[in-house]
């Protein structure tokens, strides 16, 4: 089927069967490779993107459900929350291998958009679906707190 997806503010024409996960359209057809494939079963969060501002797992989000939706990937995420999150991530050198971090950042932006001053428990529960095999969790937690402070300016 032929579809129009609005990704990072632009209308993109794609052809894909219903049931095609957004992940593969984004990566293999639109060349937005910042969104990562980690498990394919919504168990690791590496593929997290925003649909209408909410973090979702793009490996289990299907193209036919997305017409008219605003899709944002790591390449297109912007605004004060994203800027604070990315700045905090860099200041604390959160990354190791870095492969999960696009997803972590998209999830963290979701958290701080909903809860600007999260507690440790808020962070742990909101971020629990995002796996980091390098185990950078402690720094992610600290970076989210730092981003919250930056947002307050």
């Amino acid at each position: 089927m032929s579809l129009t997806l609005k990704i990072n503010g632009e209308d993109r024409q794609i052809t894909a069967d219903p049931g095609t996960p957004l992940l593969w359209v984004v990566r293999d057809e639109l060349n937005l490779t910042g969104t990562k494939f980690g498990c394919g079963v919504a168990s690791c969060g590496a593929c997290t993107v925003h649909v209408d501002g909410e973090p979702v797992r793009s490996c289990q989000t299907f193209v036919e459900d997305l017409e008219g939706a605003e899709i944002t990937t790591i390449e297109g995420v912007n605004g004060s929350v994203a800027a604070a999150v990315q700045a905090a991530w860099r200041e604390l050198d959160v990354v190791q291998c870095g492969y999960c971090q696009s997803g972590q950042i998209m999830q963290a932006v979701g958290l701080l958009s909903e809860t600007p001053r999260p507690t440790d428990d808020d962070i742990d529960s909101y971020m629990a679906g995002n796996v980091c095999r390098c185990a950078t969790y402690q720094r992610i937690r600290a970076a989210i707190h730092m981003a919250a402070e930056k947002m307050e300016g």
Partner: protein
Amino acid sequence: MTIETSRRGFLTGVAATGAALLVGFTPKGVLAAGPANAQLNPFVKVAADGTLTVILKHFEMGQGTTTGLTTLIAEEMDADWATVQIEFAPANDALYANLLFGSQGTGGSTAMANSFMQYRQAGAAARAVLVQAAAQAWGVAPADITVDKGILRAGDHSAHYGTFVDAAADLTPPAEPVLKDPAAFKLIGNATLPRKDSVGKTDGTAIFAMDVRLPDMVYAVLLRSPKFGGKLTGFTLGEAAGVQGFVDAKALDNGAGVAVYGTTTWAAIQARDAITAEWDFSASETRSTPQIEAGHIALLDAPQYEAAAGVTRADSGAALEAAAQVVEAEFLFPNLAHAPMEPLNCTIAATETGVRVYDGCQFPALTKPTVAGILGLDPEQVEIETVYAGGSFGRRANTVTDYNREAAFAYAALGGTRPVKLVWTREDDLAGGFFRPVAAHRARIGLDGDGNITGWDHRIAAQSIMKGTPFEAFTVHDGVDHTSTEGLADNLYAIPAMSVGLSDWTSPMPVLWWRSVGHSHTAYAKEVALDMAAKAAGRDPVALRRELLADDSNTDQRRLRGVLELVAEKSGWDTPLPAGRGRGVAVHKSFGSYVAQVVEVSDIDGAIRIDRVVCAVDCGVAVNPDVIKAQMEGGIGFGIGHVMRDKITMTEGVVDQANFPDFEPLRMPDIGVIEVHIVPSTEAPTGVGEPGTPPAGPALANAIAAATGKRITKLPMTDHGIEFV
């Protein structure tokens, strides 16, 4: 593998010390200036605009080499850290060998250890010729020139390095460049130096192998034998041809499976699901886990090899016979998958002269000839473009370069007509073998009437990682694969009469080093058994370890005791905890580094909460203190996550775990605060990627025992009565 480097006089500051230290490195040869271009030596490029680029002979899997190696050259050149660029080296053993391996590759936590002097010398040599060229241009003495953030100055003169590149290329670099006095270091030891890979990994622009896209490229997945060692005998396309984006399906020449090609990864996966294949399982692993575990335990009764130097079971047996009491424990460690976040993948494309391999390539020295052999090319016709690797934990380095090999077969099966990217799914990864071997241990520790350890008989049964591989000569001696016994047969405690017996398990299933290799099980068995002995003897676990590491004339004991004492202090070991909470300690040397950890847990209505982990590490000179802390944090998480609840099991040779829900990784809520303390040192830098992992599991086990009295000797813990919150 344990790799030792000389430590004596390491930082006395002159190049001669370093040149003598580094096997096979001759500054003159390596640093010979080439034609008039910006590459001053194999490791340093300076562009006409002054941009410095550091060439990295080691790949980046998260361990921090892009920052670490760059620090060394930037330090010696007094470069501007913010503008230094990085580039991964091509595959070239002559220029880019790991000096501890003799060929190009990353592993064994050796990147910094083998590069420390080489990269400093390369930076110092490049600086020397650039400064000399500036001195000639300005008519001043080289000694009158200062450099700060890449800008050379003398009197009224000021210019960046790029100004002198052409002139410097005609100069002969010093054979023994003078290195900086460590007292003048600005970058080495700087705890606030930002990582070089931080920006690209936080805005989606960093390119991992999975992100490589080439014109006309097809994506491929492989339909593999469900049992290890199965051979493809035929396949039926079924509905695959109808999948949108399906390109082709081909049996691989080596019988390993069917390569299924698509215009997207999804198309290839969908088409593979529709294909049915037939296999010859006559040489396959067909056993199930209970049988495999029982087989390992049975091997403990009669060790094939003696692994501890100079001590036999007769010696330890006599001590145990005479002991007032004997503490006994049997340990069982499951297979574990590495499961790096980026599933394995590799892209191969034609060039004018051969092929180019795009890979987060850990062992170029093996990948290059392997791919060449499969494609009928000379190794020189195979180029490797190394890109970021999304984790490895050992998986991307294997002696048969399994996924590079598959990619080469898949490329060849399509006639070499199009670039092919071979992608593994997570299901492929967890079912794909190359696991941490299953290991069984039995410890028997004899105590005298005063609670002193008088003898220790230890036995291990595990499948050898190294036998039959190109690495066998390095680690297998008199039948003993050192990677099965490391950390135990050569442990540092002063224990009279400790014997270590080893038996090899054999299976068609391939096994592999997994972050910290043999230490991933030997440290657990050693440190938990010792804790049990301390308990039986009525001794404090820290005090007993301190006593067993008391010899000041023994550098190993002194340094391991150093981290033990530091962790005891920082964790408040001597401050009692309320009931329902417990601390556990473990210490271990691996990859040249000394690590001690204390884990603190609470018993919350019968479930364990991990409150805090305190870690002390002595890894010689701390080149990048924050990277070292990050590696300890990550190593601890890796160690703890797997002992908590992970295992790979098999039913009649087929892996039971399909995806992450069945091999549940450590997640953020699982673990509390981790504090890392680095012992100041002027010794040669040693490994940090792996040494954080071995003590974490046993420290947790010992903490659980302290809090609850439950002793977990069979893993994972969740299979043996422990629940976590």
